[in-house]
């Protein structure tokens, strides 16, 4: 068909007078986008020089580190009982916070999704809440709540809960927008109300993705709970911060090690819960997914079919069923499994709430204290700090993020390429690189920063290196995945002309993957800006240090001013990233 229709067209073109080849019109928006990329690249190079990362100094600090570790001696751990109690407290607090966010995000997501929102005004308001919740760091929320509630678990729960609403409700709204509208129309056609259409037609479809998002967020919150300890939220993070402040490095590193192990265990648990409860295969490349996949492979080989095949193949019950006999739901494997998972979930939730020992009455009495605290936070002013110092600190934060992103990008392109199936010279190389990426992703950035601070001393170097290293885990994986997804045709065509492996990579793989590369890098920059504002809290340079200082010195006007500065920067970068993704699509 196509050949027949195309032939006359080509003849026509052949006969037509030869015009000048059509110039590729670059839209002004595209030009601006490309110029922005170049400007950011230049800025990153400048930033890299300004944070003073050079190999000579790093070698020198490495010898520092050796001496340091000699001085610290062995890593110490607290007594087992205390350790277990602190672990339970940290887990309970994180789970309670995530649960709070999970509940709060349902109405927000319903209002924000285009197909369930009652109107554009509601939608805009919900989107605003989502963006704002994500932009205000949970540490800042924790500072405020610590002030309101004094000690206890409530500040941590509320901080995690309110901040996490941003991510959970955004992903949940996306899931709602992607549903099959059919079942919902069916309920509508049967005379269901709007609420019934949601509960019977929409909710069952999005429940699995909602649970998966919440579990994922729980992992993130556990990593983040370390930094909450620095501003007075109880748990392992707080004990660790005390240890480091009293220069008990051995104990501090012991806590860091415990948190690191806890994060990995949690990832494995949540991955297996996702796999078992939701029937979502552990396809991810995270450490948890990998372990679960390996563990279940043997079992899966025995009974190759999943749940679905099993139930389809099973013959109806031998005894003829009647309406009366069917009124009782049989205790088949599905029901036993669902019920036991439900029971475990309830037990975990109840245990978490009990462990947290929440002072519920505080939720009522706290309102009386709000005006007094609010007055302290308003108006924003830098107080005793020079404005120029503050702006310079913010600049330093941005420089850390830019420099870290550049370092991450360079390292990730190399590692990510070698981890891509169609680029790696050998299978062994690919698996090795993939494993390396997984390993890097397993380490919480804050822990990385703290260890680096111990090694290189306080300052921007530690922060930049921590972000750069941690970023490789994510960006390297994203790059490897997008390189594997490029069309194989051009690669084969180039290989057929006798091009070398490197020529195929440069001529076919890289050009096709560039667009994704740019997108992922901007995502990385967005993440790094957020993270860089917080790393200062543990002493890794930038505005975070002043944030913590202002809060501990009861200089709350300055806290507000710094938070506003962070908000503006984060939102600006997010806007820039969104614009770039749109233009360069």
């Amino acid at each position: 068909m196509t050949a027949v229709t195309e032939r006359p067209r080509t003849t026509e073109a052949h006969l037509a007078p030869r015009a000048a080849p059509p110039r590729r019109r670059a839209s002004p928006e595209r030009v601006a986008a490309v110029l922005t990329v170049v400007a950011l690249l230049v800025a990153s190079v400048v930033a890299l020089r300004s944070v003073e990362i050079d190999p000579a100094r790093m070698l020198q600090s490495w010898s520092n580190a050796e001496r340091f570790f000699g001085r610290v001696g062995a890593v110490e751990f607290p007594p087992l009982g205390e350790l277990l109690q602190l672990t339970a407290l940290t887990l309970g607090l994180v789970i309670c916070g995530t649960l709070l966010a999970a509940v709060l995000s349902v109405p927000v997501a319903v209002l924000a999704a285009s197909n369930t929102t009652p109107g554009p005004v509601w939608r805009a308001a919900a989107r605003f809440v989502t963006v704002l919740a994500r932009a205000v760091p949970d540490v800042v929320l924790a500072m405020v709540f610590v002030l309101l509630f004094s000690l206890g678990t409530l500040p941590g729960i509320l901080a995690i809960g309110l901040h996490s609403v941003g991510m959970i409700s955004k992903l949940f709204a996306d899931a709602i927008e992607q549903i099959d509208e059919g079942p919902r129309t069916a309920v509508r056609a049967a005379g269901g109300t709007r609420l019934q259409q949601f509960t019977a037609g929409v909710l069952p479809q999005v429940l699995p993705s909602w649970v998966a998002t919440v579990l994922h967020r729980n992992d993130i919150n556990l990593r983040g709970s370390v930094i909450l300890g620095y501003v007075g939220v109880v748990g392992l993070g707080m004990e660790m911060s005390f240890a480091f402040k009293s220069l008990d490095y051995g104990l501090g590193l012991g806590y860091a090690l415990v948190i690191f192990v806890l994060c990995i265990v949690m990832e494995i648990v949540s991955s297996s819960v996702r796999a078992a409860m939701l029937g979502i295969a552990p396809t991810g490349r995270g450490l948890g997914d990998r372990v679960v996949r390996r563990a279940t492979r043997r079992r899966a080989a025995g009974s190759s079919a999943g749940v679905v095949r099993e139930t389809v193949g099973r013959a109806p019950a031998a005894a003829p069923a009647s309406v009366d006999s069917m009124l009782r739901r049989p205790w088949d494997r599905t029901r036993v499994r669902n019920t036991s998972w439900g029971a475990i979930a309830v037990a975990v939730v109840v245990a978490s709430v009990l462990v947290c020992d929440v002072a519920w009455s505080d939720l009522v009495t706290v309102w009386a204290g709000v005006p007094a605290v609010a007055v302290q936070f308003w108006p924003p002013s830098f107080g005793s700090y020079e404005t120029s110092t503050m702006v310079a600190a913010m600049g330093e934060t941005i420089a850390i993020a830019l420099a870290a992103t550049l370092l991450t990008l360079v390292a990730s392109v190399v590692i990510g390429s070698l981890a891509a199936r169609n680029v790696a010279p050998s299978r062994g190389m690919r698996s090795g690189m993939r494993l390396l990426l997984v390993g890097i992703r397993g380490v919480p950035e804050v822990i990385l920063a703290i260890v680096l601070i111990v090694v290189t001393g306080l300052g921007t170097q530690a922060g930049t290196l921590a972000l750069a290293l941690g970023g490789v885990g994510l960006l390297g994986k994203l790059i490897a995945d997008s390189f594997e997804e490029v069309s194989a045709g051009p690669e084969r065509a180039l290989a057929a002309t006798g091009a070398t492996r490197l020529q195929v990579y440069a001529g076919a793989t890289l050009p096709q993957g560039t667009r994704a590369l740019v997108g992922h890098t901007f995502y990385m920059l967005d993440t790094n800006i957020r993270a860089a504002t917080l790393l200062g809290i543990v002493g890794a340079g930038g505005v975070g240090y002043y944030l913590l200082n202002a809060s501990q010195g009861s200089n709350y006007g300055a806290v507000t001013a710094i938070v506003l500065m962070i908000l503006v920067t984060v939102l600006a970068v997010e806007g820039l990233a969104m614009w770039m993704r749109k233009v360069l699509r």
Partner: protein
Amino acid sequence: MTPHADPSETVVSLEGITKRFGETVALDDASLTVRRGEVVVLLGLSGSGKSTLLRHVDGLERPTSGTVHVLGHEVTALTGRALRELRSEVGFIFQQFELVPSLTVLENVLTGSLAAVRGPRLCLWSYGRAARAEALARLERVGLLERAYQRADTLSGGQQQRVAIARALMQRPQVLLADEPVASLDPESSDQVMALIREIAVDEGLTVICSLHQVDLALSWADRIVGLRHGAVVLDTETEGLSKAQVMEIYGRVATSTDQMAAIELELAGDAVR
């Protein structure tokens, strides 16, 4: 209102319905009257306006002009609870079944009773024992009682459509609308489903409007055939003693352009092969 009340009573009437979606005209001054207990087939190629017409009967679409009366109510004037009550008296069967795949068969059937209860229902037990017993009886009627506690997506296409029929029956409807109910099914399940709809229609005294695109099936199944083309009614006749050639002739007589003729000839050829 009891079924079989008055055989000559008009249950559904559409008068001069025109529906535009932007520039396209989906329905062009279409009129249709259906009496109680009639089994009517809307016949036409895809894009002829069959689905849009059915959706007007259930108040899922509002006409650009014209009026729709169903069971003595002017659908076009109803809103809120009155509209929902009318919808609950009209069952709707979809081409793609539109079950919730992750819920059990029984829960899917129970969603048919949502209009009768107030507020949301979140799990099986929240519907109450009486409703569950009724839903199981409906499932027994469509021959799927044993499957009640399986997930809907573990069933074959034909079985899923039978679940959807049970769900529609759960509404205790007076009118049943079916939009290409067998277009996604293999021939064998397709025969089963069409036979089931006809049986139930007779047993429960339902008025049925069903859209189809196969002339043969329509002739053997319906009491009356209404032909649609480009949103206009071009044929409205009893099937008694009617032959396929006659249907095609009527189609051909009102065809105005050669491409429409070609479309009909294509379908004739396709039916002959089948």
